């Protein structure tokens, strides 16, 4: 065995032994390399790769909270959460995505919004992350997909909560709608805690109370297998549902207001003059907020924004109108309070009023004859107020307007409120670089000219007259409570100020408003009801100044040039319980168009109350 050559076979074992020695070294080296690599993977990179294996296995899944409900003052649900179904594909589980997609589309029509399987999201390198291919499929299609789930590997159905706006169009402007947070919103400070896939309120209460309604996300650690199937829940934090909001809105009254308009455009607000709470607020035309639930289509959005009647605008707070004759209350209050007139001051109206070289006309061409303040308000004599305007001057009117809440926001809990415009001498100089003309005060005194008010401002001022002089904050929200009913925040009536008008003078105005409806020559005579005494004032807001001798027949005037018809009132005379404003856009002259709507609302309200008392 000692390396000598075998004589017979010529086998030189020594030579091969040397070779084997070399091979032993080579084999050892090879094993050493394998060892080194295993050392590197298991010991040096062990922790890192352990993490990667955990990432494979454990998925953190966010659980979105349910958004808070919105209820009316009686607890009726206005906004609820419903389930919507999305279809997603897990690329890894599907293997051949195109195949699965074809099968899916053969089974049912998924709609045009279906994402193509060519989409780059399928090649993101994250094979276990589901890619959503279509949203909001109906239940029939859901059933088809579910029954064929074995033939559709990788196809998963996600249940997504969506908002259901129970009252649809009628409350769209109050409740608003929700949508995916936009890139620009994400950049803003108020959305600092939000994530890119969050749903946020975009409009109305949904937007204003978003912080309360949204709730807190929870999360789950789920163990999944290679095809993304959930095997175990390893732990998690439960989501906290959003707070519920209770509004002062009365859903039934809201419905009455909505129906009262029939198909006319305009706005109606009902407030409780004793508290400032908003009981109803309608703006027409409107939109269906449910359309926004899963993203509105491009066409749908275009249609809404292109509509000249501005269905997306809440006319009650964002519409700015000349107050017309409804403004006479304010001018009268100022004149009384300044001691320029008493309730007995009489002025002769012959239908015209001359100021410099201009002639202003009363709406009643023949004139009212000799009128005192009561009749001037009740019969809405323009000439009487032309005189008051001249006596007061623009700045005095503006001062009182400010005290009645005009010219600044009422602070209602809705986004998009406008502040209106109360002109002063200084304002005109600043705005136009021109001095104030005396004639401008004349038209201002009857609520025309530069003055612009929002319907909500106007109604709030009338509430102050109705309740004897208190200007309340407008309260749309009653309270915010947790999902199980604990009160988080309560919104109690809040006095903003007392208007600087004495009780005696307010009573003069209140009586005049009673007269406007309940005396035979009053402009609101159409509203006289036997069983209750409505007190109110009509108004006509000019859209443009019309040539003076056109026909009074509104049908002849082109729709968009027609005046807006206003009516503000409170009921009853003694201790009023509701105050109501109605504006019919392009309704033509004051009383005739708005009165029936007001009547329907007032009657509707009292019928509702009677029914509620019975039960």
């Amino acid at each position: 065995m000692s390396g000598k050559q075998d004589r017979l076979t010529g086998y030189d074992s020594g030579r091969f032994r040397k070779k084997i020695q070399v091979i032993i070294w080579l084999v050892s080296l090879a094993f050493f390399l394998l060892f080194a690599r295993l050392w590197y993977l298991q010991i040096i990179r062990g922790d890192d790769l352990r993490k990667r294996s955990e990432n494979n296995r454990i998925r953190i899944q966010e659980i979105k909270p349910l958004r808070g409900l919105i209820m009316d003052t009686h607890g009726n649900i206005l906004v609820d959460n419903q389930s919507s179904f999305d279809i997603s594909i897990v690329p890894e589980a599907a293997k051949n995505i195109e195949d699965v997609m074809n099968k899916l589309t053969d089974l049912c029509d998924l709609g045009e919004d279906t994402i193509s399987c060519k989409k780059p999201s399928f090649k993101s390198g994250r094979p276990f992350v589901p890619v959503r291919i279509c949203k909001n499929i109906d239940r029939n299609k859901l059933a088809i997909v579910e029954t064929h789930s074995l033939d559709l590997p990788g196809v998963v159905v996600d249940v997504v909560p969506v908002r259901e706006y129970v009252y649809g169009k009628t409350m769209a402007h109050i409740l608003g709608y929700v949508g995916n947070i936009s890139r620009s919103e994400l950049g803003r400070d108020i959305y600092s805690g939000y994530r890119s896939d969050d749903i946020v309120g975009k409009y109305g209460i949904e937007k204003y109370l978003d912080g309360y309604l949204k709730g807190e996300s929870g999360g789950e650690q789920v163990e999944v297998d290679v095809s993304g199937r959930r095997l175990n829940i390893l732990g998690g934090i439960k989501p906290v549902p959003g707070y519920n909001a209770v509004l002062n809105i009365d859903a039934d009254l809201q419905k009455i207001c909505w129906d009262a308009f029939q198909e006319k455009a305009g706005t109606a607000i009902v407030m409780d003059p004793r508290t400032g709470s908003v009981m109803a607020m309608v703006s027409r035309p409107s939109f269906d907020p449910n359309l926004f639930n899963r993203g509105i289509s491009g066409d749908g959005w275009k249609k809404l924004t292109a509509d000249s009647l501005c269905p997306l605008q809440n006319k009650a707070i964002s519409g700015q109108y000349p107050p017309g004759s409804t403004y006479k209350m304010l001018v009268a209050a100022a004149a009384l309070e300044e001691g320029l007139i008493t309730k007995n001051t009489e002025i002769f109206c012959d239908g015209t009023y001359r100021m410099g070289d201009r002639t202003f006309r009363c709406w009643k061409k023949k004139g009212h004859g000799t009128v005192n303040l009561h009749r001037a308000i009740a019969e809405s004599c323009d000439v009487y107020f032309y005189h008051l305007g001249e006596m007061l001057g623009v700045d005095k009117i503006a001062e009182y307007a400010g005290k009645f809440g005009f010219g600044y926001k009422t602070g209602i809990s809705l986004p998009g409120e406008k502040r209106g415009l109360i002109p002063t001498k200084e304002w005109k100089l600043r705005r136009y670089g021109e001095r104030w003309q005396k004639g401008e005060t004349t038209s201002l005194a009857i609520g025309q000219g530069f003055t612009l008010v929002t319907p909500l401002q106007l109604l709030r001022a009338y509430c102050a007259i109705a309740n004897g002089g208190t200007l309340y904050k407008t309260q749309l929200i009653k309270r915010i409570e947790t999902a199980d009913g604990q009160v988080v925040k309560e919104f109690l009536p809040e006095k903003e100020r007392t208007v600087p008008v004495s009780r005696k003078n307010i009573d003069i105005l209140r009586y005049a408003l009673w007269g406007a409806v309940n005396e035979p020559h009053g402009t609101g005579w159409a509203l006289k009801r036997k069983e209750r005494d409505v007190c109110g004032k009509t108004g006509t807001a000019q859209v443009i100044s019309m040539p003076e001798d056109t026909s009074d027949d509104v049908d002849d005037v082109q729709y968009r040039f027609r005046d807006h018809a206003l009516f503000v009132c409170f009921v009853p005379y003694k201790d009023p319980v509701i105050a109501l404003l109605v504006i019919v856009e392009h309704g033509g002259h004051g009383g005739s168009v708005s009165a029936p709507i007001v009547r329907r609302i007032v009657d509707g309200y009292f019928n509702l109350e009677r029914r509620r008392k019975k039960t």
Partner: protein
Amino acid sequence: MKIDRRLLANFDWILLGLVLSICGIGILNLYSSGYNLYTGGEFLYVKQMFWVLLGLIMMVIAFSVDYRIIIRHAYLIYAVSIMLLLLVSFYGNMTHGSQRWLVLWGFSFQPSELMKLAIVIVLARYFNDNMKKGYNFGNLAALLALLGMPFLLIVKQPDLGTAMFLVILVFCMAVFVGVGRKFLVCFISGGMVLAPLFWFLIKDYQRERILTFLNPERDPLGAGYHIIQSIIAIGSGGIWGKGILKGTQTQLRFLPEQQTDFAFSVFAEEWGFLGVSVLMLIFFALIMWGLKIARHSRDFPGALMAFGVTMFVFWGILINIGMVIGIFPVVGIPLPFFSYGGSSMIVLMTGAGLLINVSMRRFILQP
């Protein structure tokens, strides 16, 4: 057959022990990886036990018959193997796009596995026959013919990995017997000339695999996925491992082919570096023991055959583990005695039998 008592006295229990301990660990590993993979029928680890038993029978046959008789029939064995490969190319079963299996009496068999052993035996015979004359270019042609036939048949299946494996075995044995330097230069340069040609001949998926080997992240979902998941599985085992049945990569099926090609990854994940070290040491000892047998063989064909069989096992280990830890491309070479597979197990057990054969006859051999 009369049994020489000296044969029993010299029986190589160590080799048998090493082989059976690897088989045992392999079966345990199959139990763990199959735990959550059950798809009906017999569990794979049970089947593997059966293959080991069958292998042991083959092993007994392989060490009972004097290896010189076996080598005398080398060309017959080779011819039978070629016949089987031919049969595969005509009647073989298609799986995963390649034709590798022959179904005989309900058993699936992979003749290419048998070919690995057959080429070792036939080369032992061939080199022995030509030793005295020295090796020249005429021998090269004969060698290329012996290698070429099975090579082409296996490439055609297509099974590039196994075909290359044959080339490596032939190369190792040629180097071992000491073919001239010119011979080696021709062999290597011929390979280098053929390599680009090869590139155009091979199938797309094979090309893909080589590219993916060079950069696994190139296609993390497709071919690279296997390697990435394997590396994650092995590395995440750490020092101590995750414990049997607790390997998440394995049990949650992130790891592909975990009973055959990636069986080692399962083991590394569940047993960690410590377990891997033990297994690797057993493998190392087995190779060393095989080389020792070759070294102590009394005659040339015995040494050659022992060396060839040892290289068969060694390259199987190197390529398979190299593949699962990402230093070799993904080719379907099972880990010897460890991966699931009937053909491979039986052939390897037969090979171990040949090693024992050479080992136990080293003292009684009369030249």
